[in-house]
């Protein structure tokens, strides 16, 4: 009798712990990107020719840091930013409100350059005809038209070699120009301030173009020498645009161009739809299984159903405990667990029926049923577990979640379908002195 107290103690303990771990489920279960909506982006570094593997990896590391700063500035909760291989960066932004914007900000190279505008009429004409002189370049000033759409308006001839780049920026913040438009104020570090002072001092009366990613943002006239290392970018920005520009300038330029090779945007409505449908499918599936088991095995079916419920409880408890991510295929994995969980019990019950037909006593039949079914149960669970494991380790995105719930479900199944049901059956048979088993 004492051993039963211990066994029941273990079972009740497990129930308690799991319940504590996952209740309330809406807070404790971590939802994957597909369920809560958000953005998943994979960026790949654009490789220049004859560049070493090692330096690609270094570039990617630097890019990752810069992207992390940009995302932090965006204020996304629980972003996931990681490097994959040498040249890829994976970014998960759950619950982001404006995904397109976020992707734009992340992917912007943000190479800021200050270049002198060349006023030479003949050179400019020559350049317009497609004959750009050595050491110069023709870039366009991008301005907004009346409808708020950016258009390349005015071409300007610039000295190719920048006077100064964004790498000297220590801070960038939004301010307002005289006409009330937001602008972006830059603060340069000591070295940058020195260079800037020199450049402005030498070129009074000329125009200095502020070029971001190859596009001229503005080209103000240098009126005087600027000694304190402060510059302003104006350009009829909206508040939003000015803020974004400040963010990317603050975080610095990316060391290389990054291409978006995979982008997945899940709207919040789709995530909710997934949860509803996944939950519905699991629930209906489970109900059919539960009813079928009672119908087919009577009291023993009830027992298997109890084990099934416990199986799901443990599965959810462990998921919450290890902070596993629940995805839509993960919910399918839970549903599938409902169907597979009773398999072990079916094997056992069928064997018990067989032993009873062979004329054994209830207790002996039950013992033999569990004992003889064990090898088949373990073999079949392990093969399924192998697949679950592999999908968890090598699977991509939501599929990982499927491997996770499937694996946990199967491990929990060995405990619930065998240990728990055996304990209860033994206890009932001994306590009630049952002489005939109906199964």
């Amino acid at each position, binding site marked *: 009798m004492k051993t039963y107290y211990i066994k029941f103690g273990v079972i009740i303990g497990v129930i308690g712990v799991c319940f504590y771990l996952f209740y309330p489920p809406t807070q404790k279960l971590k939802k994957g990107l597909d369920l809560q909506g958000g953005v998943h982006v994979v960026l*790949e570094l654009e490789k220049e020719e004859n560049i070493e593997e090692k330096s690609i990896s270094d570039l990617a590391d630097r890019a990752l840091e810069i992207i992390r700063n940009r995302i932090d500035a965006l204020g996304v909760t629980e972003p996931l930013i990681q490097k994959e291989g040498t040249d890829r960066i994976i970014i998960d932004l759950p619950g982001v409100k404006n995904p397109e914007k976020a992707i734009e900000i992340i992917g912007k190279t943000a190479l800021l350059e200050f270049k002198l505008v060349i006023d030479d009429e003949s050179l400019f004409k020559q350049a317009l005809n497609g004959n750009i002189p050595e050491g110069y370049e023709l870039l366009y000033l991008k301005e907004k038209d009346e409808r708020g759409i950016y258009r390349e308006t005015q071409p300007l001839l610039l000295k190719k070699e920048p006077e100064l780049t964004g790498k000297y920026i220590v801070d960038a913040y939004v301010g307002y120009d005289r006409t009330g438009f937001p602008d972006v104020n830059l603060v340069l570090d000591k070295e940058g301030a020195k260079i800037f002072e020199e450049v402005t001092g030498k070129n009074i009366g000329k125009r200095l173009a502020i070029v971001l990613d190859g596009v001229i943002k503005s080209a103000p006239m240098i009126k005087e020498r600027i000694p304190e290392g402060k510059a302003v970018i104006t350009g009829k920005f909206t508040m939003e645009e000015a803020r974004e520009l400040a963010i990317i300038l603050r975080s610095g330029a990316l060391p290389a161009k990054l291409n978006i090779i995979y982008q997945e945007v899940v*709207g919040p409505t789709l995530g909710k739809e997934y949860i509803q449908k996944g939950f519905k499918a699991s629930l209906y599936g489970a109900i059919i299984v539960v009813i079928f088991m009672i119908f087919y095995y009577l009291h023993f079916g009830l027992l298997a159903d109890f084990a099934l419920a416990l199986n799901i409880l443990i599965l959810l408890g462990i998921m919450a405990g290890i902070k596993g991510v629940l995805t839509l295929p993960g919910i399918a994995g839970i549903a599938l667990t409902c169907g597979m969980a009773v398999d072990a019990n079916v*094997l056992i019950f069928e064997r018990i029926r067989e032993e009873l037909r062979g004329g054994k006593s209830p207790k002996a039949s039950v013992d033999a049923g569990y004992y003889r079914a064990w090898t088949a149960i373990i073999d079949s669970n392990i093969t399924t577990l192998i697949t679950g494991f592999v999908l968890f380790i090598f699977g991509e995105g939501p599929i990982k979640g499927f491997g996770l719930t499937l694996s946990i479900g199967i491990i929990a199944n060995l405990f619930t379908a065998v240990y728990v049901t055996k304990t209860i059956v033994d206890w009932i048979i001994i306590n009630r002195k049952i002489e005939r088993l109906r199964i």
Partner: protein
Amino acid sequence: MELIKNTNFDFLGKRKFFYVFSISIIIIGLIFMTIKGEKNFGVDFVGGDLLNIEFNQKTDIVNLRNTIGETKIKGSFTVQELGTESKKFIIRLPQNTSNIVLKKLEEKFGNNFIVKGKSIISPSMSISLRKKSIKAFLIGLIGILIYLTIRFEFKFAVGATVAIFHDILIVISILVLSGKQIDGLVIASLLTIAGYSVNDTVVIFDRIRENLRKTRSTDYISIFNKSINETLSRTILTVLTTIFVVLSIFFFGGETLHTFSFCLLIGFIFGTYSSIFIASAIVIDWVKKSSSRIKL
């Protein structure tokens, strides 16, 4: 209640017929697959854009298709309707065309629709996704094969292995024949099928092992048949409970899980079929040919 009791079918007697039946489906499927080429694969395996949109009013799919056609984007696109209300659609587009198409849709339908989901998959990403899926699949499969070889005699392991390949090939064939596309989730389902449908085979082999130990007879066909009959009820019941759930996912789980659950359904059914008609049959034929005794 007992549905299946004291059966005595000669499962192995007609094994030639089942060999032919299975091989025919597989061959037809593979021929179809070769003809269709890249169209067999979903966007995550070949690259492209995917839009999931919902209109707030009934929208004609032909109208939608024509509107997209007006953009004159290069390459083929497909529009698939979700549900029955003519409101939800999934649009598969060639790479980097989703913005052009969305602009066109805005021109035509204004604010009458929302973009619920959007994926853009470049060719280089699709190649690595494909590689990863195949790698996962092969590692999983090898794991199962090693386990079976350890647990059973070599001939049995081979029988179970052939049954697994059979199940996977049948699923792929039926998938292709029904015009569905192979994507990452399908590969995951194939691996799940490999892991799960071997269960029935294991249960039958387990019983064969038990029965062989009880007797000195070498009438393997009748021992095998007896074992299959004795375990028939549990073989069918276990897969039945799982199929209940798979059907529920298929009908209520939504579009994302549709092809996934379709594969599981076909795979589990044929997994049970192959456990009964293929796996043991192969062991029998091998034993007969080599005229050796089975040692377990």
